[in-house]
Structures are given as C-alpha cells and as structure tokens.
C-alpha cells in the first residue's frame, strides 16, 4: 500500500519553504555561513549551514516560544509550513500521529544543561534545559503546540532515522491506526559538533560541498528540519506517492527507479559505497550542497524530489563529478518518473525510499 505526501515544510541553510530550497537546488547549492571555534588559544572558522527560525512567530506567539529551544523551533516552523503547504487541513487531533527523527537530538540544549552543572554545581542544574534536552522534547512541543493527541514517537538511528520514521508512518497509516502522520526530520548544529567536525576533518574544511566528487572530503555541517504531512493513498498526489521504504545493514538491495538521488554529502568514506553499489550509467543526482551534511539529510533529498515533481521539472544543474553515472539535465520532465532516495552510512547501513507519480 502506498502513502501520499500532502504537505512539506523545510527550514535549513537555504532559508525556509519550497521556493528557497528549490532556488538553492537550482543554483547547485547555497553559500554556508561560518562558525568560529576556539581551542587552546587558537581560533578556526568552520563553514556551516545554519537555519533561522525568525518567522516562526508568524505561526506561534513569542510567549509560547519563550522556553522552546532551537531544535524544537526548527521542527515547529517546519510543521507549520507543512500544514500551510497542505492547505491547512482540519486534522482530527486523536487520529493524527507524530514521528520525529533526529540523529543527535537537542545537542545544544544538552550542553547548555551541562553548562549549568559544570558552571554552578550539581545542585544548580537547570530544570528547563534538562526537560528540553530529553530526546522527545521536539515531538512533545509539536504535540502541545498543534494540540495533536495521537501516538507520538521519536526515533534516533543516526543516518537511518529518516527511513525508520517513514517506514513506521507507513505502518501506522496502512493499519488504520491514524489518518495522518506528521513526520519530522530534524538535526541541529552546535559548537561541540563543530569541534568534532574540526577534529575528524579539520585539515579538509571546504568552501563548497561537492557531493558527486566522491574522492574528495567536502562535507559542510548543516542543520535544519524537513517535515512531511502524510496520509493514506487517495489517488492523485502532486508530490507523488511513497511506494517503498526499506533500511538495514549490508549491501543496498536492488531497486527500480528512473532517477536516484543519493545522500552523498561530501564524506569521502561513505561516498565510496555509492560508487561500489550503484551501477555506472544510472541517472544519479546529489542535492546536499543545498542543505549541508547532517544525519537527517535524506529528508531534504525527498523534499527536493517532491518539490521538483510538483513543478513538473527536475531542478538540479549538472554537477562537477568524478563518477561514471549520468546526470539528468535541469528542466527534464518529471511527471512520470520514479525517484529513489538512497543513503549509505558508514556503519554498513543503508536506507532506500521510492517516490512514484
């Protein structure tokens, strides 16, 4: 049984909303900001794709947001944009589920909590930071702000989180457990992650992320939220239908798709897996220069594929590459194409999702 995408909301280094994500995709990427990281008296500028949530207040009052952290704000903005994109349907609060996928959770708030402990002592630990650092806080904030009382789940499986979430949403919808599911994929950047990046890849910090140069290390950390409102198949869908979701360990299973959007995000080690497991001559694209490298990046790939389908035409330009794949020219018609979103992780794991017309 297939499920359909009714609405999509996105926020990330490209800005927010379909128009800004597609603009970044059509331009072949967008320019990152920089974050300053200091250690042992030295400072280094690290490129990063940061998300802004300023216009969340178009949807939620400042008062309601006063204790809501950055991760939850991204999720909330994405959710409101998804609902707006779907035409603000009347949701049955008890028949609408929420599934949030996050690779690392609210890391910024976790370390803010540790600041309160390490800075002021155990007895001065911040209760607000603690309760917001709990991994399911973003899902809870969605539930509370949107007044949704159906089942509510948070998953954390690093790069498999996105596929795990869509797989679960499909089961809920197919079993009739709920009528709609808000699937939210969100990850944030914080200085500790920047430090980790610097330690692991410090000598190879790029200015531009080039995901189809698989022999290069060009990953730039990113953050953002991609939120999808899903429902059971009811016929024609502007964004298409999710026909297949699969994730696991080992070799990528074989699949049929006209276009494969790989989750290559500039990491050399993972990049090799795509080269090893996808046949030469396939039509392949990689869109991560539009949003950066983050565990839930595949959700942005799905968003780009869906937004492109809705416009009728493929968005990405031909990219610099060192592969034997073909690339679809921008403007190619997409109405009848099956698109596969594929992610190969560095723990021998994979994720596969197929979007059909």
């Amino acid at each position: 049984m297939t499920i359909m995408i009714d609405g999509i909301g996105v926020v990330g280094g490209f800005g927010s909303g379909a128009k800004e994500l597609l603009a970044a995709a059509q331009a072949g990427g967008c320019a990152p900001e920089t974050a300053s990281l200091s250690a042992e008296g030295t400072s280094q500028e690290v490129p990063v794709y940061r998300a802004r949530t300023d216009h969340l207040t178009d949807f939620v009052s400042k008062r309601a947001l006063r204790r809501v952290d950055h991760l939850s704000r991204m999720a909330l903005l994405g959710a409101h944009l998804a609902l707006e994109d779907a035409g603000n349907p009347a949701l049955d609060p008890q028949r609408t589920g929420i599934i949030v996928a996050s690779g690392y959770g609210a890391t910024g708030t976790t370390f803010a909590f540790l600041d309160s402990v390490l800075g002021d002592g155990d007895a001065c630990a911040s209760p607000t930071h603690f309760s917001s650092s709990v991994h399911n806080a973003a899902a809870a904030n969605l539930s509370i702000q949107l007044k949704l009382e159906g089942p509510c789940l948070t998953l954390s499986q690093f790069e498999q989180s996105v596929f795990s979430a869509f797989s679960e949403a499909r089961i809920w919808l197919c079993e009739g457990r709920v009528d709609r599911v808000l699937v939210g994929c969100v990850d944030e950047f914080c200085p500790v992650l920047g430090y980790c990046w610097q330690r692991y890849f410090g000598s190879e910090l790029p200015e531009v992320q080039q995901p189809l140069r698989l022999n290069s290390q060009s990953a730039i950390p990113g953050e953002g939220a991609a939120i999808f409102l899903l429902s059971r198949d009811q016929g024609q869908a502007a964004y298409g239908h999710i026909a297949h979701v699969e994730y696991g360990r080992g070799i990528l299973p074989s699949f049929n798709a006209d276009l494969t959007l790989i989750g290559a995000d500039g990491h050399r080690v993972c990049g090799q897996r795509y080269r090893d497991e996808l046949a030469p001559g396939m039509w392949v694209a990689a869109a991560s220069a539009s949003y950066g490298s983050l565990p839930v990046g595949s959700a942005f790939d799905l968003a780009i594929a869906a937004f492109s389908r809705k416009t009728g035409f493929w968005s990405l330009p031909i990219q610099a590459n060192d592969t034997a794949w073909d690339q679809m020219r921008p403007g190619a018609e997409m109405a009848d194409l099956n698109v596969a979103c594929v992610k190969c992780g560095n723990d021998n794991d994979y994720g596969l999702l197929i979007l059909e017309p």
Partner: protein
Amino acid sequence: MTTRVPVAITGLGCLCAAGVGVDDCLDSLYRGERRPTAPTLFSTSHPVTYPVLEIPETDFPREEGPLLRTSELGLAAAREALADAGLDETSREKVRIGVILGTTVGSAMNNEAFYQRFRDGERPEMTAIDRFRRSNPAAVVARELRLNGPTQTLVNACSSGTDALGIGAGWLRSGLCDVVLAGGADELCRTTYNGFSALMITNENPCSPFDRDRQGLNLGEGAGMLVLEKAEAAKKRGVRLRAQLLGYGAAADAYHLTAPSPDGKGLRRALCEAMEQAGIAASDLAFVNAHGTGTKDNDKVESQVLHDLLPGIPFHSTKGYTGHTLGAAGGIEAVFTVAFLERGEIPASIGFSSQDPDLPTAPVTENTPVAGKAAISESLAFGGNNAVAVFGRVEDTA
C-alpha cells in the same frame, strides 16, 4: 482498526537492581527485597543524597569498554531473551530478526569529562565521541548478535520500552521481519540524576509509589528485552509460548513537557485502544503493572484513571524494587508482567503503607494471587506520551 494477528512472546531477558536474569529478579520481588543506595557509579555534590537502584558491581562489570553501558545492558538482556526463545546462533541465521530498543541515556551525547575539557578551551580526545557513535543501542544488539532485520532505537522517554513492544508487533504484522527483539535499556548517569533532582521529583528516601507520603522517585538502571514472533510461526518452531501480546495503545496528552495531564486523557485513550485491540474487557484482567513512579502527579493521575476504567482490578508498582529505569522501564515491566501472569501472583507494591485520601484507589500491599486471562503494563512519559500493552495467558488465548 488494526487487524488482530496473534503475537507470541517466546523469550524474556532482564537485568536491573533486583537481579541479573529474570528468575533472579523475580526472587527478589517476591521476597520483598530492595536495595536503594547512594550512587556509586558516579559522585555528586548535592547536599542531599538521593538513593538510586544500581546493578551491583559484582553482578555487572563497570570497566569502561568500547561501548556505552546502556548498550551493554541491552545486549545482556537480549542474549538471555534469545536463549530463552531457543534462538541460538545457527537458528538465528534462518530468520529475519528485527531489533527495537527504547532508551533515553543511550542516545544522548552528554559525556561530562569530554565536555568539561572542551568548555575549558582544551582539545579533548575523541574517544568519548567514537564510543557514542558506536553505541546506538538497537544497532549494537543487531551488530553483536548478527541479526539481519530492521533496527530502531526509540527515544520516547519513559514510555520507550512499552512503545517498542507495540511497534515491534506492527513489524510482524506488516511482514518486515519474522522475529522481533523488543524492549528497553538505560544506565544510571549524572546527567539524569542531576536533571531529575533539578525538577524536584527525586526522593531522599526509598520511593513509595501511591503512598500518602510519597515524595518522588528513585532512579534505577537496567534492561528488559522480549522476543516476539507470530504465534503460528512460534508453534511451528516448537518453542514454548510464554504469553501473547494482545494489544497496544498509545496517545499523547498534548499538555506539558514534563507533567501528565491532570485528567489523564492520554492514558485513558491509550488504555481503551489497547483493550479494544486485545478484545478484552476489564473483567478479563488479572492485574495492572502501573507506571507508579512515586511522584505526586503521576500517581494521582494513574490512580484516578485506574479507578475510573478498571475498578477493582489489583494493581501494583514494581519501581520500588527497580527504581525508575527510564527508557528501560517499559521493557523490564513487560518482562515482569509476563512472568507474574505465568505464575498467577503479583508481588506487593513495595513502599506503600498509607492510603492517600486524594487517591481513589490503592495498590496491593502483599504478594497477591491473581486470576484472569490478561494483564496490563502501562507507562507514562515526559512529553505527555502514554503507552499501554496488554498481555494474555497462552492457554486462554490459544
């Protein structure tokens, strides 16, 4: 409406402060033993000591290995459950086994020593981060035991373990795999100790769920894992069926980040959904294993809901024996519920001695024989999650 496909429970695994192994835990519970102590896994500077329920060092190693402690706990419980289900290494190769494991600490990047050095402007080594990256609990169990089905780590706070069971049953119904290892694992750590203390819901004394003088919870650690498979397939395998997972319900309060909705609306709906899916009435129930943390808010809400929806059904909390094991709680308490159902007796709700006049009902105060073909385990969580699982005796559901 979810199609009812009988899901059998064929294996149990558990370790916590009450014991290492299911039988060891049950012995402690029925003897009415509990061992809250000052924390020894870590030190704190609180002026007051909040007792915790740790697994003794003699029972489970504490040396820092390549994996986080939470993953090691989950792995130990998973091994016991698979052995109980007769799934040795050879037989595991013939079936697709999925792993779904609930946790809170196990997915948190919160190593204090690493962060302290970073905060001080140093360049800490990446050992702690490497360890964290290697230690996604469900991935660890799948990798170490060479299991080839889907894996999922649930981070739904205190209802994670119960949610894992319901989600796992869904995997079986949809054919994602043949067998599911489902449950939860969580270790004690300074972050949760300091966090719960900051929220002022930890008790300076051993906890007393539902008691008039209850003052909060004690934290604990451990893991509880169950093997689930389609009843038909389990029978073909010739393995003993320990119970059936008859129903699961989950609903959100949409109320507050840490406090339950005072009217218990989410718990009520989760209970109704689970019982409807199970096809049982209140009169079929032998007992309820409540969430029963010992906090003012949780116990008040639960007591009212149990009184309204399941009047006269015996209930208890086992958190006096185990502590609140967070993401592991639902898994550990599911193991206990199945074992109590098999035995036909539930242990006393330790710590309870005085009825709270604001609570309309009270737990059992001594080991109590129970009759009935089914039992419930329920979990309430931060974020307003409510999850309920209904288990059935095998002879009554075959």
